């Protein structure tokens, strides 16, 4: 049976971003997409975040580094897979990427001051959007430097679609914050010695805020903003480049979804948000769909005795109910996301952790197999 295919997308795009809620199998599908692109003759790089160890091992990523590594042809051949172009994989270490960005961008005298500042620690690990931002920042770098023809980006699990797409703007807001300047300008211009005085002389607003978050915290924030202010132009430029890359015709988005009610709603919202931003929606991939049990099963019950027959009947009923639930989910997803192509991938008996299973998942992406 054949179905919709992403072949055209895999041949054409420079960048594919896999988005979706946590726990839907984005990482695995990103790997399957890259593998199939390489099979079609385009060198591909899959950039994953926190893959299952077994998937990492299968790809030969035993060393979890922050740089692309080629998946060895012997490893692939061992699984009976021959690719027409190289396949590379890498792990994205978000904290290391932040540190690296500061190392490259900060004026030499400011580097240590920034890296050690508590606000930098928050920015690089905990500020909403910072993980998404650095993933995109890294994507921009890879796009400029990688020799791979297609880059497939797996993204951090995101609670809200907007967190991801707005990340460049939000982080930029933080670093180049009109409001912060307005509040802290006297402090920013003041020397360290007079910082506190300037701050506390800074009017009722700073004073009142200080009562809530603490004067020292305010002071520390001012110092951090002072340290990064020299980098603002470079950050702005990079964030603009990343935004442009996302909207560029060479970039497409694959929305990875689940058919269950909760997963489905998130996917529909995400799909709408991508559309609102004018981003290219290349496909909705519904993962782990429960397949219908074979129709022959009922007839095969004939002649079996209890209790086996009863247990089989119950198991069969449950399997049908699960598949029915997923079919309904797919129908609703298709209605809500048309005309974006929708591809359903069955739930495999074992988790997709070896190269053969990745290959098999890929056959659904290319329409060589279909379940509907």
């Amino acid at each position, binding site marked *: 049976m054949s179905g919709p295919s992403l072949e055209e997308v895999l041949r054409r795009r420079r960048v594919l971003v896999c988005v979706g809620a946590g726990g839907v199998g984005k990482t695995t599908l990103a790997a399957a997409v890259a593998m199939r692109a390489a099979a079609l003759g385009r060198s591909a790089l899959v950039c994953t975040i926190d893959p*299952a160890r077994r998937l990492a091992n299968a790809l030969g990523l035993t060393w979890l580094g922050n740089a692309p590594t080629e998946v060895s042809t012997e490893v692939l051949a061992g699984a009976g897979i021959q690719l027409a172009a190289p396949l590379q994989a890498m792990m994205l270490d978000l904290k290391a990427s932040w540190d690296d960005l500061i190392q490259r961008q900060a004026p030499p005298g400011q580097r240590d001051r920034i890296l050690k500042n*508590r606000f930098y620690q928050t920015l690089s690990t905990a500020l909403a959007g910072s993980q998404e931002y650095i993933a995109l920042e890294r994507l921009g770098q890879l796009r400029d430097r990688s020799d791979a023809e297609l880059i497939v980006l797996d993204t951090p699990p995101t*609670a*809200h679609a907007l967190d991801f797409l707005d990340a460049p703007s939000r982080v930029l807001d933080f670093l180049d914050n009109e409001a912060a300047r307005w509040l802290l300008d006297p402090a920013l211009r003041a020397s360290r010695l007079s910082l506190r005085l300037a701050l506390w002389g800074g009017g009722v607003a700073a004073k009142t*805020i200080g009562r*809530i978050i603490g*004067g020292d*915290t305010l002071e520390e924030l001012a110092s951090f903003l002072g340290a990064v202010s020299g980098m603002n132009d470079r950050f702005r430029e990079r964030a603009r480049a990343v935004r442009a890359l996302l909207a560029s015709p060479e970039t497409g988005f694959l929305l990875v979804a689940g058919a269950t009610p909760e997963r489905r709603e998130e996917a529909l919202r995400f799909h709408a948000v991508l559309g609102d931003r004018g981003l290219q929606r290349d496909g909705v991939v519904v993962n782990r769909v429960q397949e219908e049990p074979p129709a022959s099963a009922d007839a095969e019950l004939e002649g079996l005795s209890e209790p086996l027959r009863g247990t089989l009947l119950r198991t069969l009923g449950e399997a049908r109910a699960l598949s029915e639930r997923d079919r309904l989910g797919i129908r609703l997803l298709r209605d809500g996301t048309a005309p974006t192509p929708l591809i359903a991938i069955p739930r495999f008996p074992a988790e997709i952790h070896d190269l053969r299973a990745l290959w098999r998942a890929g056959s659904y992406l290319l329409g060589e197999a279909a379940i509907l």
Partner: protein
Amino acid sequence: MSGLLDRRLLLVTGKGGVGKSTVAASLALRLAAAGLRTLLCEVNADRRLGRMLGHPEVGPDVADVEANLSMVDLQPDAAMREYVLSKIRLERVYRAVFENRMVRYFLRFVPALAETVMLGKVLWHLRQWPDAPGGFDRIVMDLPATGHALTLLGVPQSLVSALPSGPMSSEADWMLDLLTDPVITSAVLVSLPEELPVNETLELTDALRTRLRIRVGAVVLNQSVESRFGPADLSALAGRPGLSGLVQTYEEDARRTEEAVERLRAIDAPLLRLPRLVRPEIRREELVSLGDALAEGLR
């Protein structure tokens, strides 16, 4: 007798998509049914629990929704307002300063501020127990997924260790006392019989216990499948490919459940399996029966 349901604050968390909200809602319904005044909180979650339980109107203010059950969807701005007003008491000053567009914008970036005020609100209700206004017998928090949950719960600790003494760090002291008291607070970790969610549960346990010193009171393995067929059954099905396939698929799921159970046993906390639900939507009766199963298993 001190089981999990005797803890006054239950923190439900786990990897995205494992069924945290389902477990949190089931626990809350069960506690309320037992006559305990219960508050069910979600954290800036688009009122998902409200929709699940048929109370879509619940927002950032605590609302009584049914007998013994109140709900709230914590939101940073509303929690901030409440917090600031409790400190400066002057609505006029609040409006002049904190409703200023620039200030609002700026405050979004003060690290941990949003988390502090949201967590602070929940813990304030916890502190009102037993009889003060706003007090509840039980509070169930449907936390965000692992990483964000750890950030949220770690806020008092990082404030205490990182901040010079000041208004935020003095708030953090009492918050930390409540969170780390094993008689008061317990985490409930939700997992699935798959490799990644189990990995995450193990890592989360470690982070909660060693880094945040929060008790892990129970692990709930959602969507568990119990073995039904043995080798003899499979031989009896020789020549029936459809049924053999069905049985193999089913037993593969059961095997995955066993594998997950085996790994989760390392946690040294009661482990409860919730059966896989096959209905298209999770309805209230399912939540009630899950709640009963939880209460039974976690007694």
